[in-house]
């Protein structure tokens, strides 16, 4: 009788146990990626235990993001969207405390002009040893639909050559860390760019509640 009850209890407990969400990253293999011909992006947000693959949804090329860099919007299967300007996150939708819009012209410029370590002597003129500081602005909505801004003063660190392993494929990239300061927090965004400027991997801060998001370009 006692063992019967014990077995019943264990059965009930095991049935009540939460099924663990399968790790998306674990299901991706190089062989499967090689069969995909459309662009594909992997994004992970640890604070929400969320992972998803995204496909392109739209592109808006205009002067508002500076240097005629287009903003590309990507979408997940469950209708969350992420918008990037040259790989730098500028907006999210469907995550709750979404990043509504962002001014990342300084970041994009710092990533594309290379700065210290590339371009050689004479590039940029004054103080090639010191990274220039530039502002960065984010906007969010509070609980009553009013826009709140968070502003940072950022500087981009030097490019460090690195090799990353993207599901079995080794890539030579250069890693740059952007440090941004505000009165409330200090954030560090990391970008791994290829020699042609493609952002292969990144770790970017979305907001105080969402925290950091890592992205990885799976298929170009």
């Amino acid at each position, binding site marked *: 009788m006692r063992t019967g009850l014990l077995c019943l209890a264990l059965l009930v407990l095991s049935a009540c146990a939460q099924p663990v969400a399968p790790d998306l990253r674990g299901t991706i293999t190089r062989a499967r990626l090689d069969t995909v*011909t*459309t*662009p594909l992006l992997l994004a992970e947000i640890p604070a929400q235990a969320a992972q998803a693959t995204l*496909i*392109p*949804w*739209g*592109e*808006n*090329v*205009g*002067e*508002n*993001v500076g240097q005629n860099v287009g*903003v590309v*919007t990507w*979408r997940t299967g469950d*209708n*969350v*969207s992420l*918008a990037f*300007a040259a790989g730098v996150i*500028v*907006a999210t*939708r*469907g*995550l*709750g*405390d*979404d990043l*509504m*819009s*962002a*001014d990342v012209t300084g970041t994009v410029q710092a990533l594309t002009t290379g700065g210290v370590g590339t371009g050689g002597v004479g590039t940029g003129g004054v103080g090639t040893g010191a990274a220039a500081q530039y502002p960065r*602005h984010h*906007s*969010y*909505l*509070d*609980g*009553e*639909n*009013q*826009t709140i801004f968070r502003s940072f003063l950022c500087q981009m660190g030097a490019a460090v050559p690195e090799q990353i392993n993207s599901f079995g494929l080794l890539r030579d990239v250069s890693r740059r860390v952007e440090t941004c300061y505000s009165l409330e927090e200090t954030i560090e965004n990391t970008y791994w760019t290829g020699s042609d400027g493609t952002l292969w991997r990144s770790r970017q801060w979305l907001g105080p*509640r969402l925290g950091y998001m890592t992205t990885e370009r799976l298929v170009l």
Partner: protein
Amino acid sequence: MPSAWMPPDGELAFTSSYFVNQARNTLTFQINPRLSGSFRYAQLYDVSPNADGEVVDFRFDRSFSLQYRLLDEAGFRPAVVIGLNDFLGTGFYRSEFIVASRQIAPDLRLTAGLGWGRLAGVGGFSNPLSVLGDRFGVREARSSSQGGELELSNIFTGDAALFGGIEWQATDRLRLVAEYSSDDYPNEDPYTFVQRSPVNLGLSYDVSDNLRLAANYLYGSELGVQLTYAVNPADPPNGAGIEAAPLPVVRRTALAAAQSWDQHRADYRADQIRADYRADQISTSTAEALAGQGIGLLSLQVAAGTARTAIENQDYTVFAQAVGRTARVLTRTLPPSVDQFEITLVERGMPVSVLTLARGDVEDLEHDLDGVWSGLTRTQIADAPDPVQPAPGLYPRLDWGFAPYLIPSLFDPDNPLRADAGIDLFAGFEPAPGLIFSGVLRQRVLGNRDEADRASTSPLPRVRSESNLYGAAADTTIPRLTAAWYFRPGGNLFGRVTAGYLEPMFGGLSTELLWRRGTSPIALGAELNYAVQRDFDQLFGLQDYDVVTGHVSGYWDMGNGYHTQLDVGRYLAGDWGATFALDRAFENGWRVGVFATLTDVPFDTFGEGSFDKGIRLSIPLSWASGQATRDTTDLVIRPVWRDGGARLDVDGRLYDVIRPAQERALADNWGRFWR
């Protein structure tokens, strides 16, 4: 023990506590950063309503309280709060106090205060305020037994007593309290509740951000427990929402290239951007795309570079979001020759406002940091009094469905919490915009509201005091079956005529006219009704009682979310008077408010409670779930529901129908345009 600490502005909390023979349920709302109001329902067993008098089995007591923070804590100065407990009730808890609290160490708070009335039971001494006048020395007993009368001449009179305590925040979640109480519970049966000492000890534990549990050891003799659930409407659980992401804006240059996209952009084609623009196809593709966004397209006309659309917002609590989503769809489905979008918002067949946007602005501002402010300044919003010309084939239209229902019934001394639950079948038929035939067939599945058998003793026409008979008579009822016409008599004017079985207890004819300019904080309305009382079985029968009622109403949006309303006129029992209501409306759709009606019915004739008053709450489902829906849960809590000051409960009163679609509400919530 009261303290000078107050919850954050806007917080709504429900507290339920139990100890020796009494249960207290309290709803508390932080009306503004300094003012807090509560409604308490106490169930007391084995009490003597007159202290030291006879003990009765039970007494259920409703009371209102207010607290106001006079001084903030700063430097060496403590926070000081003044409070009135049970100033509008039967007097069980009637007391006033002034209390000061100060944090004396990072996790230690000290409180000390002076109480009058019920809070001067232990260690009372003669009133220090007697220096201001002799009348402060003696506290008179309440002269009314009905409750509901505001006897402010009695406040801060009589003996006073000291109380105080210390609170220690032991960990993030655990707090310990020791207090010296000046309340000696004069009404409790001294045999069931023995107070050994005026010192109380308690501990509370924060299970989550919203839930707190507490246990107390009171007066050296009894154990009590308490549960508090708090929400702050300004802090939604899902942030700005987790609804599906909006369609990206498509630039006209991208449209032109649509036909020559390479394989990599094959997915764009899958989103149905059309490069061919036959007139009939534009309307169909736009209607389909908008339907996918929860927006109904009523008409679309393209002429001379301007596209004029009329839409119905089906899913979005905030209308600005429906406008933004419509603009995004239009950039994808309209030919490049269209430069300007005119979007008219239609509610119940009435066009309310028209917004004019330049397509170029929509394209440029999608990802602009200041897209909200820039977009709002470049948008023109105007009144739209001209009737909608719907696309052919849309009308007549029929809509029907099933929905569950739950109706609570509170505060009957026989059983303070009753409820009925079941299924509603609703249907609506619209032959033309603004003309709506609708009804609800209700089937009760389970419930105990039919157990309420207290007969009404009201000398007035029994317009509301027999609500229990309406709840008991039949399992299948028709709460509402009406023909309604909504129309625009002119600029800034809105009109409504409703006829039929208007609400569960009354049928008849209801007419209303409202004037509200989109930017104005003031609105004026007038309503004239002819009401006939329905049979208790809520089917097609009518009783003999009929009455002409009507009101003139003034609405004032005070700003910062506070709204007041004053209605003056004649009520269902034939009495004349006025209703005053004060609401705090949050931009996300939450509303918390109080109302009170005073009429020419004398307090004694009205009966218990003296006059009609209550609290109303409206909670948007989109706030709780984060999904796009306009559904709300509406609650009205009246301590007593009697026949004086009773107003017809007709559906579709204009102010709440049109206000969210007018300029003020659109501009205040423009942050959601880009969602």
